[in-house]
């Protein structure tokens, strides 16, 4: 296992401690519950926004806590939803008179933990709502699953409700906005390699030198199908076809385009993908109004990428443009 790791069981706590040490003025860390929260949360005048999920998707979600985005994140172990206690304790700690919005990626474990956590918090008199995110078009047959997964498109929901909550929106309004963004967001991903969870120490699956996993999930779980590896442009065309036709996005639409790296792919390659996607969208008469290239939601060290589109309107675009300040930063 070629990783920077000490005791694998301490991987998540050590990472969280690192985040806290790097942001002493803005973030508070509560080790008992894997909780990273804004030091100034909860605020009387603002709904608190919380997201939890398994770890291993960094910067999601522990590194996007901050002004204009999350008030708190409570991750579980690598790829495991947080225990319900973490959710409950987090909700208590960020409980604002305006309420708490729990953002949940649509996976069985996450939904159960957040549901149980919400029930417990409500019993304490906290006003809590849950918003489920499910942007992954790779999941075809939702009759036989719990439904589509929440993947990188999650970023846009967080950004939008984060911005609106700073502007004073109430819980109903935030649920409406988050739902609206989720409804116009679609994602599809591809993996070139499997990822290696620290506690497992070996890759989750084997991919041949000439293979890729199309429609992969962000937990290292295999995807829609295994395909021969093709050139970058062809991969983009295939991802785009799946995503564009799903909503569908049509000629005349203005979109946000995200090329998200899955953890082991350098940003140079992501821009090669972005170039093609931008050109092909233009061919389809779709205008890229906002561009996102980098790592937003990863699968540990997996080489791969996902492509997300969000159909923009003035309301959404204004929220995406709003300032924010989080732990992943350049300067």
């Amino acid at each position, binding site marked *: 296992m070629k990783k920077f790791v000490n005791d694998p*069981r301490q991987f998540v706590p050590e990472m969280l401690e690192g985040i806290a040490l790097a942001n002493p003025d803005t973030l508070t860390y509560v080790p008992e519950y894997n909780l990273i929260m804004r030091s100034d949360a909860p605020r009387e005048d603002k709904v608190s926004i919380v997201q939890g999920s398994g770890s291993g998707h960094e910067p999601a979600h522990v590194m996007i806590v901050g002004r204009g985005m999350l008030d708190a994140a409570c991750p579980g172990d690598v790829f495991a939803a947080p225990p319900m206690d973490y959710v409950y304790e987090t909700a208590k700690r960020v409980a604002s008179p305006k309420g708490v919005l729990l953002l949940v990626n649509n996976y*069985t474990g996450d939904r159960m*933990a957040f549901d149980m956590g919400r029930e417990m918090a409500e019993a304490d008199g906290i006003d809590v709502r849950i918003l489920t995110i499910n942007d992954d078009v790779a999941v075809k047959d939702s009759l036989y699953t*719990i439904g589509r997964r929440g993947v990188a498109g999650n970023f846009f929901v967080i950004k939008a409700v984060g911005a609106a909550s700073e502007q004073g929106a109430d819980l109903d309004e935030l649920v409406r906005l988050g739902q609206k963004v989720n409804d116009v967001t679609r994602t599809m991903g591809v993996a070139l390699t499997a990822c290696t969870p620290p*506690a497992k120490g070996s890759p*989750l699956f084997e991919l041949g030198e000439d293979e890729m996993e199309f429609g992969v999930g962000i937990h290292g779980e295999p995807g*829609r199908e295994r395909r021969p590896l093709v050139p970058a442009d062809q991969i983009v065309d295939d991802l785009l076809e799946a995503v564009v036709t799903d909503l569908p996005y049509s000629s005349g639409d203005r979109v946000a385009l995200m090329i998200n790296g899955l953890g082991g792919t350098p940003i140079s390659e992501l821009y090669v993908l972005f170039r093609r996607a931008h050109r092909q969208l233009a061919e389809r008469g779709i205008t890229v109004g906002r561009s996102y290239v980098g790592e937003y939601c990863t699968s540990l060290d997996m080489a791969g990428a996902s492509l997300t589109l969000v159909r923009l309107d003035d309301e959404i675009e204004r929220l995406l443009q709003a300032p924010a300040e989080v732990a992943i930063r350049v300067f």
Partner: protein
Amino acid sequence: MSGSMQNVELVVRTIARCAVDNEVYFGELDAVVGDGDFGYSLARGFEKVLDEWDGIDRTDAGTFLKRVGMIISSRIGGTSGPIWGTAFLRAGATAGATQGVSGERVVAMLRSAAEGIKARGQSDVGDKTLLDALVPLTDRLEQELTSGADAAAALAAAATTAREAAEATSRLVARRGRASYTGERSRGSVDAGAMALAVIIEQISSQWQAWQTEGVS
């Protein structure tokens, strides 16, 4: 099937040790079409149970099992925390304020656990989950006990059934859990949760003999 409090403790302890000992194996089972964290999650949760073992409230079997369920669901994340936590909570509720549990009661407890899992997981037999081992093994246990088998024999039979049922899950397509996203590709490998249950019941069955021999009634 003798119903002392000690037997309840021994069974729970065996489950916990089994989860800790098989961390790697259970994780590998989950890695085939899942995300590989099942072994880790289960081990961390039951480790906590063992850590807190002496302090767990033993007023009666029901309380004891419910406390175990709470430790599990507060510590285990993923799908398994809520699922296994619910199973222990429900089993505890059905056990009630008694020191010992009869064979009949054990069957009822397992049925409650299965119902709890179904409700919590919106799942059923045939979805390729641990239910596909739990329900057949409960049926077999009930059948053996009804036809007069002693606890040891009934447990041995249930263990055989559990293993067969767990292995048979490889013919199913997953409709719940992480594995379900791969659709048809989930066929051909066993469900991690079902196989874990088979390993656990086998372990209980073989330990049972030892407990009885050692006179730990």
